[in-house]
């Protein structure tokens, strides 16, 4: 037995986070230098450091940078939300969309498309839809005064199914030319991404708040009663978790539609390889999620260019083998 596993672990955690941050930076450079228009590393440096109005500069500043930063933020939000949702529901199969947030957002967005509103109103309505879902599920799961993860999960899953029906209904009565825009909300796509200004603020606040809850979260994994016995105020913590996860998901869905798979798998890959300490897991999930989505999006737009692939396809292509490999190698089990 090594005398100080704890301090060693802290150093190791720092190293992991540093490596993941470097990976994010690497993916960002890769994303900015790959695409239909050739931009080399030195070109990129010139474009960033000098003030010019060349085609390359336009492509980097107007197209690639907003999209890359959006991918980072959305990926980080989804992975973080997935991680929180899995603890809240104590269910390894939980993902950010399981409680119907994306359904609410999609209905909001589809409604604006059908009404012929502009893209700003669409984002706003998507966010409002997500918030309506948040309050609806919370209110319903809460009404009898007996709040439990199972009750919450059931309420959320059924509400999500309800949204699904509304979406199908809207799709079947919508006009042909509206369908293109509607499919976006169901598939998830970063091509319409803008610079993620206010969304990155949402992300940073949620990350800090959830990080502050990290140690109680570790206790929650052992069950509500156990957490209570060790001095966690379980009920406020659950509400906090629910709000944080929903807010993150709503923000992500508003930017890029519902990109599947990422929020489910990234936290699991990290749990299997780094352990279950949320003080490491939460920031690591955010970094890894951002990195994975950015890489996937870069591949999606360059792999068979000029044809563009749905980013969800690539996240699955990368995520599935990585997850299965980690699952095989890991000596930690999943219950």
């Amino acid at each position: 037995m090594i005398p100080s596993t704890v301090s060693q672990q802290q150093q190791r955690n720092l190293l992991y986070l540093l490596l993941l941050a470097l990976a994010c930076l690497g993916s960002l450079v890769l994303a900015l230098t790959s695409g239909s228009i050739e931009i080399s590393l030195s070109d990129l440096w010139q474009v960033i450091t000098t003030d010019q109005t060349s085609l390359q500069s336009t492509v980097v500043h107007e197209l690639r940078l907003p999209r890359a930063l959006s991918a980072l933020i959305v990926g980080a939000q989804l992975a973080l939300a997935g991680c929180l949702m899995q603890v809240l529901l104590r269910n390894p199969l939980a993902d950010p969309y399981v409680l119907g947030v994306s359904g609410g957002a999609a209905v909001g967005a589809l409604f604006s498309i059908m009404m012929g509103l502009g893209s700003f109103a669409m984002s706003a309505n998507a966010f409002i839809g997500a918030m309506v879902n948040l309050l609806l599920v919370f209110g319903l799961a809460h009404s009898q005064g007996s709040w439990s993860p199972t009750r919450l999960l059931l309420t959320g899953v059924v509400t999500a199914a309800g949204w699904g029906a509304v979406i199908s209904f809207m799709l079947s009565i919508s006009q042909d030319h509206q369908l293109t825009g509607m499919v976006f909300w169901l598939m998830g796509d970063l091509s319409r991404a803008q610079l993620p200004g206010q969304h990155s603020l949402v992300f940073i606040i949620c990350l800090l708040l959830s990080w502050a809850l990290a140690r109680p979260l570790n206790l929650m994994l052992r069950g509500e009663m156990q957490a209570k016995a060790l001095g966690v105020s379980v009920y406020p913590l659950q509400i906090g978790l629910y709000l944080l996860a929903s807010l993150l998901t709503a923000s992500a869905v508003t930017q890029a539609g519902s990109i599947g798979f990422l929020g489910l798998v990234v936290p699991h890959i990290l749990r299997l390889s780094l352990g279950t300490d949320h003080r490491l897991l939460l920031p690591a999930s955010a970094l890894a999620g951002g990195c994975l989505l950015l890489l996937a999006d870069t591949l999606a737009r360059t792999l068979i260019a000029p044809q563009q692939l749905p980013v969800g396809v690539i996240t699955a292509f990368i995520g599935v083998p990585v997850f299965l490999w980690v699952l095989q190698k890991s000596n930690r089990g999943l219950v």
Partner: protein
Amino acid sequence: MQFFSQRQRLSFAPFALFIATLLLWLVLAVSTGYAAPISVIDDRQNTVTLPQPAQRIISLAPSSTELIYSAGAGDKLVAAVSFSNYPEAAKKLPLVGSYNQFDLERVLAYQPDLVISWYSGNQPEAIEQLEKLGIAVYRTETRYLEQLPETLIKIGQLAGTETVAQQEADRFKQTLQHLKQTYSTQAKVRVFYQVWNQPLITINQENLISQVIEVCGGQNVFAELESIAPKIDVEAVLKANPDAIVASGMDEQRPEWLNDWKAWPSLKAVQDQQLHFIPPDHIQRQTVRVLLGAERLCQQLDQTRQLNTQSQRKPEQQAKPKQQAKHESHKDDALS
């Protein structure tokens, strides 16, 4: 005297300079073609302005590509999207993606001065992004057959090929007028147009195809439905009992599922063998080739019309099999 003439010369100098400038300006103007900016209103009522005729055009839909060629601006096309398969020359164009997912960067890389987009096919956000980057965009959207020649002329104006565009537009109008005169006033034929079999999709009156049917003196049995491409069930078709069923399918081949209707011998279209096929590119694309589809459809419906007038002379024969079928189905119910 000398003093006088010097004064004259001095006063003449600025005038000469003015004349010279004017001449130079005129020469320049003529040599560059049109000097005044071109401004047209696109199919979505947005104003598109170009400082001079477009030299590098990108088409973002197969139908737009056809329209550009028809307007005589084919040689100015620098890129298009996949499935731009008509005319033959369009197949050789470099691609920027597909109409619903194209590569913005590649569009920029071609440095186009005009993009012809398709309002109901392209992602609106992507088109807005292009405009934000300072590229002129013309949005095509054909709701009426009469709109097509106008669109052709506008594209011709933007590309500086007005003469060709005008000719093509006139030809279109004449052919359409001829078809209308020949067929639209004749006895109505009730038509069910089948876009696809599973799910069973038809079209309502807002669809261009429905207008083509009307030109041919047909009547779309599902014209009144809400959605532009409504999903329906077989029962609705049985109830409507059209005189003819027209389908397009996927490609130049007559779809096999058109024969599935033969399982319903009570249908008048089946009894009269009026199951018609029209290649989808000739009727579903919003281009001048819609006339090809229209001509074919008009002939097909005319055939149906002849059969109708024959059977009207002996109406009792028509009613009989229908009643029989009804009777049989009642028997089946009783047995089960």
